[in-house]
């Protein structure tokens, strides 16, 4: 008999370890034959720690479980899936999950992340097996046909990037996985790395075979210590079992993989800075061209893809391009891993075909604001994404539809604000964020972001407000058109959207907002229940 | 002077004998100034003790 207690960082932050300990104690005390499996998270954070019990009828969920409630659960017979106030019924029937279309996250939260046999028994390495029967050209074509676009934010067609690397002649090529997940309100990368690391390893291996790269690196943000441990262990297992190294799965093909930790700079999530950092240098933007696909890591042709992009590759190879591209709308094919965060009732991961509207995401899944106050703004796509008002909530999550509204889908992070938010403060925060995270290379970002904070301060303080709004507008244009990378180039999105959609906030005297309404950063917000 | 002359001889000693003598002779002719050559002749005339055999042969050809 198995009991599942997540080891995902979000679950750990609300006491999953204590729950697991309490369950083990009960098992020992009651002399039961129960194995406690530490799985990944299902992605329903208000229910964490979400404990599941394997029963004849399938897995039954209980949550949020505390260590104190464990004894009661045992007493109530939760091992047989019996009723309890915390019982949520069969896990797969929880509407939040049932409504989803989990392709990339098909196994996440279900399997033991470090069990290769779990992985293989649930379709793992089927993609690789098929890939091994294909030529590199055919592999690249399959990925191109699937319509997969870069999930890191830019949405560049993955197959086209791969094709460039495939055709670049070089003695060495690399696959680099961008796991420097730094956008506010995002955690999909972390979840998959902690919950199903082999899918990433498999995806990178396939990418290596597709473009002729024999070496890969995962560039992981140092704030993800659990993911680091899990990846390290998973890679070691893959080597042990012959899924990495000189003879992958007996194919005679070579692929090496390792994890490298970043040093806490947001800018190193930008691919050229990431490569500099990976080479041991100061994390600073490289101009493009040359594209990393031509001159990337150590000057060699390099695929740089986001975790989710690479983790989606195995299912595309397994089920075929047509299967995958049947999901989605327009030019945005497949599924988006939406991460609900901020002031939201049901924060968590929602994998859903492109095309779902913002409103559906926020209300049908997220259940509206956490505070219960009325919704005022939402920022999609991280700290560089635009602030959308209520009137834009029917925008479908689709790269082109968002671009048309001067917004970003980005990495799929959605941060919700209620009516206590001050958008002038948020605009200032956008400039401040840019100033703090700027690498300092290009002028618009290095000096412009600092000046931007000062100009917005003057606007807030009603000093020469009209003139300073004009200066802010010019500065935003300068940053937008003149910056070297997306950090400076996209910072105007939140600023200008705030001015455009919430002009009233720039006309009233400043009132310091309550701290909860400052833009939440990453994980802190995602553990709200 | 003897040291210098012998050094030259040693550096050509690995050549076949005839070539070695010719090389030493040519070297002395090309690079030694009159005073030194004179000193060499005088030294050989007084017995040439300690001189490498290649130098002694070359000295004859220098005249």
């Amino acid at each position, binding site marked *: 008999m198995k009991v599942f207690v997540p080891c995902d960082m979000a679950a750990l932050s609300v006491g999953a370890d204590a729950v697991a300990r309490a369950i083990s104690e009960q098992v020992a005390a009651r002399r039961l034959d129960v194995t406690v499996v530490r799985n990944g998270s299902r992605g329903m954070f208000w229910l964490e720690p979400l404990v599941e019990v394997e029963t004849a009828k399938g897995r039954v969920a209980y949550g949020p479980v505390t260590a104190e409630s464990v004894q009661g659960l045992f007493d109530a017979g939760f091992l047989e899936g019996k009723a309890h106030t915390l019982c949520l019924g069969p896990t797969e029937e929880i509407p939040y999950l049932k409504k989803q279309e989990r392709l990339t996250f098909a196994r996440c939260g279900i399997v033991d992340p470090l069990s290769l046999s779990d992985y293989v028994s649930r379709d793992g390495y089927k993609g690789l097996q098929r890939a091994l029967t294909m030529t590199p050209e055919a592999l690249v074509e399959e990925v191109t046909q699937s319509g997969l676009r870069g999930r890191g934010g830019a949405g560049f067609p993955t197959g086209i990037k791969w094709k460039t690397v495939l055709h670049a002649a070089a003695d060495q090529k690399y696959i680099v996985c961008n796991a420097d997940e730094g956008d506010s309100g995002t955690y999909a990368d972390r979840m998959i790395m902690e919950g199903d690391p082999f899918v990433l390893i498999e995806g990178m291996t396939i990418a290596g075979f597709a473009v002729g790269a024999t070496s890969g690196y995962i560039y992981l943000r140092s704030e993800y210590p659990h993911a680091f441990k899990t990846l390290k262990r998973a890679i070691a297992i893959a080597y042990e079992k012959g899924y990495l190294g000189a003879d992958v799965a007996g194919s005679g093909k070579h692929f090496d993989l390792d994890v490298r930790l970043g040093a806490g700079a947001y800018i190193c999530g930008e691919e050229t800075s990431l490569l500099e950092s990976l080479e041991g240098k*100061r994390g600073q933007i490289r101009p493009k*061209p040359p594209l990393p696909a031509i001159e990337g890591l150590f000057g060699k042709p390099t695929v740089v893809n986001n975790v989710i992009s690479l983790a989606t590759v195995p299912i595309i190879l397994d089920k075929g391009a047509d299967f995958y591209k049947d999901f989605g709308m327009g030019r945005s094919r497949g599924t988006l891993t939406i991460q609900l965060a901020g002031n939201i009732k049901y924060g968590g991961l929602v994998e859903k075909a492109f095309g779902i509207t913002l409103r559906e995401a926020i209300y049908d899944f997220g259940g509206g604001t956490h505070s219960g106050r009325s919704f005022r703004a939402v920022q999609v796509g991280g700290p560089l994404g635009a602030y959308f008002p209520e009137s834009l909530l029917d925008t479908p999550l689709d790269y082109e539809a968002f671009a048309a509204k001067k917004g970003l889908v980005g990495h799929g992070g959605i941060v919700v604000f209620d009516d206590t938010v001050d958008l002038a403060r948020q605009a200032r925060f956008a400039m401040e964020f840019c100033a703090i995270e700027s690498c300092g290379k290009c002028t618009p970002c290095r000096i412009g972001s600092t*000046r931007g904070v000062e100009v917005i301060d003057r606007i807030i303080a009603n000093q020469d407000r009209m*003139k300073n709004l004009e200066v802010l507008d010019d500065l935003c244009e300068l940053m937008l058109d003149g910056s070297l990378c997306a950090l400076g180039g996209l910072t105007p999105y939140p600023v200008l959207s705030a001015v455009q959609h919430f002009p009233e906030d720039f006309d009233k005297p400043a009132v310091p907002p309550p701290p909860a309404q400052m833009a939440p950063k990453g994980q802190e917000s995602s553990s709200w229940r | 002077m003897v040291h210098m002359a012998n050094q030259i001889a040693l550096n050509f000693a690995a050549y076949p004998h005839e070539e070695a003598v010719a090389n030493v002779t040519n070297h002395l002719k090309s*690079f030694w100034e009159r005073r030194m050559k004179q000193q060499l002749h005088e030294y050989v005339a007084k017995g040439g003790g300690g001189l490498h055999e290649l130098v002694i042969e070359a000295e004859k050809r220098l005249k």
Partner: protein
Amino acid sequence: MALIHETDYGTPSRVAETLVTLEIDGKPVTVPAGTSVMRAAVVAGVQVPKLCATDSVEAFGSCRLCLVEIEGRRGTPASCTLPAEPGMKVRTSSSKLSKLRRGMMELYISDHPLDCLTCGANGNCELQDMAGVVGLREVRYGYDGANHFKENVKDNSNPYFSFEPAKCILCSRCVRACEEVQGTFALTIDGRGFASTVSAGGKPFLESECVSCGACVQACPTATLIEKSVLAKGQGEHTVITTCAYCGVGCSFKAEMQGSEVVRMVPHKDGKANHGHSCVKGRFSWGYATHKDRILKPMVRAKITDPWREVTWEEAINHTASEFKRIQAKYGRDSIGGITSSRCTNEETYVMQKLVRAAFGNNNTDTCARVCHSPTGYGLKTTFGTSAGTQDFDSVEHADVIMIIGANPTDAHPVFASQMKRRLREGARLIILDPRRIDLVKSPHVQAEYHLPLKPGTNVAMINALAHVIVTEGLLAEEYIHERCDLPAFELWRKFVAEERNSPEATEAFTGVPAADVRGAARLYATGGNGAIYYGLGVTEHSQGSTMVMGMANLAMATGNIGKVGVGVNPLRGQNNVQGSCDMGSFPHEYSGYRHVSDDSTRHLFESAWGVSLQSEPGLRINNMIDAAMEGTFKGLYIQGEDIAQSDPNTQHITAGLSAIECVVVQDLFLNETAMYAHVFFPGASFLEKDGTFTNAERRISRVRKAVAPMAGLGDWEVTQALSNAMGYPMHYNHPSEIMAEIARLTPTFSGVTYEKIDELGSIQWPCNEKAPEGTPVMHIGGFVRGKGKFIITEFVPTDERTTGRFPLILTTGRILTQYNVGAQTARTENNVWHPEDILEIHPLDAENRGINEGDLVSLTSRAGDTTLKARISERMQPGVVYTTFHHMFTGANVVTTEFADWATGCPEYKVTAVQVALAKKMSAWQEHYHETRRITTQIAK
């Protein structure tokens, strides 16, 4: 000539077979593929505004001023990082671009002090220029926000330039120049975002890794990094292009002048030896030229213990002529001679040797190349047919394997070292043969694949072992050898080196280098692609110097590494005109162009041109002169620009010889050590005060141009000419160009050289004649100058200088970056902050055995003499070997060196002296005596 502003193309040039044609503002322009749009625009005559781009470093893309629009594309890409593409239509100006550029400048100026009128860069500031170009009229951000311009922190630690971060615009040009141009990686950007600052590794410049090459100062577009001389004097108003008078790299410089005063020396971008780079010496260490120690009046005295008496030029010259005539009358025609200098121009050197041969009537002319590269001349002439290096410096950019033997380029030839390091960073592989762990063995982004730390004195055993591997492992370039080399000589050599006694295993016993490393290095050199050998005095200054030169030539021929770009055997010449002084016929046995004095047709050519009869036998070498003086047969000596009392070995022997000469004439800038023994002193002219030419290590003849009038009234050649006339042999040159015309007329390898052509081409590499009217960058292409390349048997004859119980260590000597040779120039500059005294480097084991600690005063004793100096414990040394420099007279490194010398050329064995080192309490007897002698012999009567 007005102040020269070279065109800045913004990004470096590209070499490509494919050409790309695009349109810039409607003008078609064709450039090599890979060229940036910015550079293409400059070629088309359009200057796109820029701040972070400069053509000495790769594009960076940070300032965002150079944005352009491309027809049919979205956005405004930076033209510096955008490669030109066929058919591209580029617009460099539009209202959109103007607004963006003005916006950038508005940001820049919002964080910059507004002290333009009192700023050191006023009149030469790119930031100022760009503010003007974009039409910046107001800064709407005001000056109350965050800024750096209120921080008043200056780093004045470097003696030559100051660093004022308040003026920094973070373009990173300095950081990139330090990395890409110099290759030192001393600078970095600290912090990030708005708080980013340029930093010399968190230390003041003087304490950092900075080598003071000046690349950062030159790259700086503002006054952040600026020469202190410019801060003190202001900008120059005219430029004189000339050639550096330090090492054999021969960098071209722009002397920026205010009237007759130098404001700064800036490396010349069109200089083909240095391509706009410099080192601390050429760039900054020119203050000696106006040092108060300069002697500006001719002087004579009867005895060396008399005070000097200042006289007119006429009196000094007539006195000298009458003395020399008297001596010749009394002791014979051969009793006088002259020594030319590798620091003087070709023309001065030529006139000197002509004076000796035609006016003195003998061949007693020699040059300081005797003590450095005479084995190069002998060895390369014997094997290849030409007494010179085979390549130009740029050839190194095509080398795949670089073998450095007995040279320390980062100290002694820094500008070429930078070019070499760049190639190494690009992936060329490196082999180093040196007893010491020189910097190149491991420095930032450079690491030798093989360092063979052989024992001093075993070069020939090592080169034979390398050759043995190549011969016995079937790595010979058989086809090349059969086509281009003398086969009987090759067969003799092949048999010789194949002998087991030459194997790495057999020679390991003397060289101390593991055989496996020798085998690996040999295989790499033979099979790694283009193999290029660069060597220095660690090769030549041995009793087997000439043998080693020939050994390297053998190795190069055996592997086909001669006669194309990227290969070669290349001497790194110590002084600015070593090559030239040898070319000009300074040696006693040969006329200009390396033609033996016994060759009748050549001698007749000179006899008819000069209207005198000439001697057919070689004259005295420097060491012969000293020996002859001791014997009493040599009584008069004219030394131009050389200080044999300091630079030549066994000082006490030299000074004893000088003391035996009745009339010693010294021509120099300063009362040098040799002048202590002189009877006549001719004040010399510095390189800034003369016209002429220098020939660098790559046979490149470059112009030296007079920036200021000779401070003592006459150029050096004019003095020599006057002496000749006073001796009764007429010379009537009106200008050095006429001397060069005579050289060209009488020297086949120079027949195409004229000042006009040098002016036109910038510089010329000899041979320059009908066959090669614009000169010859790479020699022996298609075949050797001597006909067939000749392999020479290189028997290893060990030196007789052996370590003993009494002298158990080996001393080897050399140079350091910031000082130059005998220190006459650099020790009279602020370079002394880096190297105030010579230091003895000793391995920790040897130090421990002797109870020596860092900084202790130690005695250094050989069979020739002893001195004292301070010790430095260093793992750069191998146990059993100690090292010092000879830059400071008071150290007297050459008091210790001996009379042993190269068997073929007499080049002294500076690199091997058996010595003992011990703790000392006081200076040596020689040093005590020296002070007193110096005091007595350098008095000038008032």
